[in-house]
């Protein structure tokens, strides 16, 4: 059962990610990406991480993708035809070559190790268990990440501000 669910979630996630990269229109790419993130939540659930699965849907499929769709909506007219046909297939293949090389290295490294099967009783990452670590051992990281988010908010506001005289 777990095997079936892994191949279902993993396969759908990978396929949706590939469709994101291959989509001609940015809106279609965004919708495929949402689908991919929902499948990623399934993968997290299989890894005994229910809290991460919920956050994945809330943050990625919810907040981040809404941001993407808003920007696509703002830019849509000029963006969609902007994907030029200038690149030949050969040029694309050349550009994908380093990606393929890295993938071969990563996959062979992943497959090299001994058969590392998971323990029978997983430590389930519930909200309470993760919060315990987050607010004790990793408190400093937690505070620092909130500063990162604060800077991001201020930065996004100052960058996105509409100066006078501009449309």
């Amino acid at each position, binding site marked *: 059962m777990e095997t079936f669910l892994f191949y279902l979630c993993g396969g759908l996630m990978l396929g949706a990610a590939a469709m994101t990269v291959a989509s001609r229109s940015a809106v279609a790419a965004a919708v495929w990406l949402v689908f991919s993130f929902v499948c990623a939540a399934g993968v*997290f659930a299989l890894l005994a991480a229910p809290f991460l699965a919920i956050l994945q849907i809330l943050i990625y499929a919810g907040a981040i993708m809404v941001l993407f769709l808003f920007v696509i909506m703002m830019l849509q007219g*000029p963006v969609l035809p902007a994907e030029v046909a200038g690149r030949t297939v050969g040029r694309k293949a050349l550009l994908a070559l380093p990606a393929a090389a890295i993938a071969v290295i990563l*996959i062979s490294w992943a497959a090299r190790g001994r058969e590392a099967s998971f323990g029978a009783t997983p430590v389930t990452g519930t909200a309470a268990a993760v919060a315990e670590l987050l607010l004790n051992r990793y408190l400093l990281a937690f505070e620092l990440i909130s500063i*990162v988010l604060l800077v991001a*908010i201020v930065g996004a506001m100052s960058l996105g501000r509409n100066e006078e005289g501009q449309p």
Partner: protein
Amino acid sequence: MTVGLTHYLALAAALFLVGMAGVLIRRNSLIVFMSIEIMLSAANIVFAAYSRLHGDLAGHVFVLMVFAVAAAEAAIGLAILVEIHRRRRSVNVDDLNTLME
């Protein structure tokens, strides 16, 4: 064969490949951003898989950090994109070559 660490690592490697190919091939910077999110997702899966292997939840904490950084990156990156679009009327990465000229 039961699903083990190797399966999750292979899935993450394949996802990372897809994201990286997107960054290298696509010209629409919105889709380049989405490809970066795919690569971050691949990293998250590796964190969660090793967390499961060692029975230690520290990996989950770092997935949360990656979530926060990804959110910050998307907010800032898209704001920069809107600003670029306002000035150059384009989001094609090939058009952004001022420093090359």
